[in-house]
């Protein structure tokens, strides 16, 4: 018995057949609206992307501050000599 058969798939289907179609999970319900699922999926994906860009931008800002600090230190040391 294959893994798919153990999960409730028709016994006649081999893995290659199953891999070409959408097969519902036994006992699963389909009451959720497609519209809300679609909106939720795109919201989550765009939120993840924007968060990643935001954190990159913040990290870049922190690096710029460190460069400014290093610049100050170098200016002072040049002033001393």
């Amino acid at each position, binding site marked *: 018995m294959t*893994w798919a058969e153990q*999960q409730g798939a028709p016994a006649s289907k081999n893995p290659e057949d*199953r891999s070409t179609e959408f097969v*519902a*999970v036994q006992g699963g319900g389909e009451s959720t609206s497609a519209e809300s*699922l*679609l909106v939720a999926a795109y919201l989550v994906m765009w939120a993840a992307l924007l968060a990643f860009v935001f954190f990159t931008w913040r990290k870049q800002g922190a690096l710029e501050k460190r460069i400014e600090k*290093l610049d100050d230190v*170098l200016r002072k*040391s040049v002033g001393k000599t």
Partner: protein
Amino acid sequence: MVNPELMLRFRPVSRLSRYFPLLLGVTFMVFTVLICMIFLVAPQAQATAGGLAQKIFYFHVPAAYAMYLSGTVCFLASAAYLAGATDTRNAIAKAGAECAVVFGFMMLTSGPLWAKKAWGVYWTWDPRLTTTMLSVMVYVAVVVLRAFTGDGEAERKFAAALGVLGTVNLPIIHYSVLKWGGNHPTVIGRGGGGLSHPAMRQTLALGFVAMTLLAIVLLWMRARVALLASQLARAEEEALALEPEENTP
């Protein structure tokens, strides 16, 4: 105001940087066209594929592909780093792992929302889903390792080794559905799962182009930041080493 000479020192990809705004513009345009095609051109799929929820597919599959792409970049840069350690190779390997996590997250959150409509459940321990989650967790481990263990030579090598090992799982994900079956269909390459309408295939193709461009943009951004951070850390060490000499009478 930062000294321009000092700023010149921190220009990791200076010659290529002039093309970055162009790449951003092209990526933005392609995404705009893609979103129009998804919602205005591509027809609604059959009910067994999730109906309207199937439109998640045009971001979900390219996001999976972008994760493979980022993982491959991480693998190549990590292997190159293990062969000969440089800051650039380390920065690209780090960026590859970070982008693989982001694209993996996009795929793992959008997939269950589509599955709820197509399969009736958000999650099932299907071979492809399980191996994909495992792979994303490996990349999360690489990112966490790099974030919390410092930036020493040993830590970099360990992270590179983990990056190489993590990518070994990618072909297993791809072939798991053919080998073991499960609920996840192979839509591409096996002629199954739908996509009978030409507009669906065109939208998917554009999705791949858009995600490739986005992956390049994100990899570029993160690699630049990582390279800048390691160069800056080195410059700070040099500056610290200079200070005691100047303070001696």
